[in-house]
């Protein structure tokens, strides 16, 4: 039973990590919380549902189209909610509010396009439908696939940030936007890339979560937004390995609460861990002290 619970926590942690890494990427550079991240995640899930259930596509084409579309939504989000404010140097609060506005718009549009019911994916469209049985432990292949995808994507993301030109620009922006601009970094282009990558990651998480739990609705972004914030604060704002670690820790804290305490306190667990972290090390597990002021 413990082995099964560890598997449960790992797969839950993989979702949190995938979702939170995009959030932390944007926070690291722009110092703002993107409240529309959960809405993009939701669009990923619903769009893939639409392509599979209504258009009769297979899982992989649907995944690809949804993820690309989420990337595009990401650019639009930046252009609509963040860039105008950035140009005016509007500070931290206005972008937060305008991203909240975009999230409402995205939810309402989703209600309009996809309806408000919780939708179910067609069973024949979903790959990896088998279940691995190792003794008493059951491991749905879909969860295995997600964990593999998460590991690969996290590594790719880390590689992008640490080893590529775009990544260097991102880190330069993180360090000091003004100096980066003076040094010839194309700030707008870099930020646009960042939104594409972050939103595409949210899209991947959305598609996999929708398929794995066979449920998607316009409201699915709400709860994961909150968890996502907890994850990036715990892991250290702006740190990608921190998002992975934070995601896993919160998933394990939640599962442990159900196992050893009571499922009544499951949601509280994440936030108790978070509070404890803020008291002991306010910058988060892997955060640099620069983020303390946030």
């Amino acid at each position, binding site marked *: *039973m413990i082995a*099964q*619970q560890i598997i*449960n*926590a790992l*797969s*839950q942690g993989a979702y949190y990590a995938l979702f939170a890494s995009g959030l932390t990427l944007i926070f690291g550079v722009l110092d703002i919380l993107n409240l529309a991240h959960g809405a993009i995640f939701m669009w990923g899930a619903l769009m893939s549902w639409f392509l599979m259930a209504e258009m009769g596509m297979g899982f992989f084409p649907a995944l690809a189209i949804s993820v690309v579309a989420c990337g595009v939504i990401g650019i639009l989000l930046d252009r609509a909610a963040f860039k105008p404010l950035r140009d005016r140097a509007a500070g931290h609060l206005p972008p937060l509010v305008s991203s909240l506005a975009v999230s409402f718009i995205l939810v309402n549009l989703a*209600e309009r396009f996809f309806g*408000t*019911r*919780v939708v*179910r994916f067609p069973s024949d469209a979903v790959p990896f439908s088998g*279940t691995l*049985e190792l003794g008493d432990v*059951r491991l*749905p292949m879909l969860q295995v696939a997600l964990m593999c995808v998460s590991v690969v994507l996290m590594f790719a993301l880390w590689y992008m940030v640490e080893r590529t030109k775009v990544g260097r620009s991102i880190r330069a922006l993180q360090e000091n936007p003004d100096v980066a601009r003076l040094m010839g970094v194309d700030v707008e282009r870099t930020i646009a890339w960042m939104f594409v990558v972050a939103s595409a990651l949210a899209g991947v998480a959305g598609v996999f*979560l929708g398929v794995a*739990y*066979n*449920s998607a*609705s316009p*409201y*699915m972004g*709400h*709860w994961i937004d909150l968890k996502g914030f907890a994850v990036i604060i715990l892991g250290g704002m702006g740190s990608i390995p921190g998002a992975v670690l934070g995601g896993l820790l919160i998933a394990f804290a*939640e*599962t442990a609460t*159900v*196992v050893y305490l*009571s*499922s*009544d306190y*499951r*949601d509280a667990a994440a936030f108790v861990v978070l509070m404890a972290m803020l008291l002991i090390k306010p910058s988060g597990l892997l955060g640099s002290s620069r983020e303390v002021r946030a």
Partner: protein
Amino acid sequence: MMYNIRLTILIPIGYGREDKGNLWPALDTLARDCPERHAKPRVFPAEWRSSAGRRKTREEFLMFTKLAGAPARLGRNVIGLSVAGLIAAASGPAAAQEASSTIETADLGAVYALTGPVAIYSTTIQNALKMALEDVNGMDGPKLDIALEDDRSNKNDAINVYQKFIQRDQKLLIFGPLIGSQTFAAAPLAQRAGVPVMLTSVATPGVTDIGDYIFRTSVESATIIPSTVEAAVDKLGIETVAQIYTNDDQFSIGEYEAFDGALTENGVEILGVETIRTGDVDFSAQLTKIKSLDPDAIVISSQGEESVGLMTQARELGIDAVFLGGNAFNSSGVLKDAGEAMENAMSATPWFASQENEANLEFVKRYREMFDADPDWLAAQTYDAVMIVKQAVDAAGITPDDGVADARTKLRDALAAIETYDGVLGKIEFTDNGDPVVPGAVLQVKNGKHELVE
């Protein structure tokens, strides 16, 4: 004494232009004198011929207000101003004395979750409302008009719609909302304002305790849940169970408590209790824990979407225990979405499609013809509710001269006087509290279909 009077003030049109300075302040004063905030003058064209261009003072305006309820043919070229609201009337009930015939149409409101997480239930309710209205308005007596609004499955919107119905739209009665937690938030407003409420879907205990204006045709789960447990023990030989329920939803908590009592009473051992929250999608941790307890059955007290998730994920984890559930299990949407995972699941229902009372046979037949789908228990409860309201409207004898407050009281009294009703649900007996008691039945899922457990 306070009277709720709708005033219509008529002013010659030639007056408006040059004498605006005089006219509008007078109206503002009038509006201020109305204690209700929403009493704002409204301009609309009316038919009235008079000596245009005469100067009017505030006193004359107030004199006009006495013309309220005297819609004589007055001519053309006139702007009318209507002020609606509560006016403190110093003299006796002058207007109400000319009681004549009953009203032609009773304006009613309905608020349900047409969108949002619990909207899964509202399709059949909407259908039943439509069908019942068609039937009712073919009968003699006052017609019913039901304005249907969406509360997006949340409490705040339910409250907003209630306020709109109570104050602005002056509805005589409100149907809905859909679930208990919304009702506990919104219905006290109606109780305070003296507006009767008819609930057609709320199975949560205690909603009728909100007050004597709250009625329902929805059967409380607690009254039928014991029969589920008895059938499970008799037919399936269940000895041990694990319970799982949504702990932030009043309805689910009510069902959980009813199950808890019935299980103990029938000597079933409860191995463990787990909780989930509304909107959760991952139940693996709780279900894994339940799996290790190895119960004969899992009792689920949840709304539809979570029930579907729980059942499918339990099967994925290799749990083969049978499921026992509450109202959510009766929904055809849940049955379809849960698919094979729900096989053999048992639940009690206040109503089932193959019930053989005459009203039900007719109802099921017509429903299938109209909507090309099967009705569920919510449709049956809603249909009966509209019929009962119609009966009450007929009996109440509301006249056009009744103020809206009087009309609402008359309607409430007429509703309270109905003790039994023979309808689609069968023979309903109402308790003093306004709760319905019906025979009910236990259903079991066999080959993806609900079947009656004899």
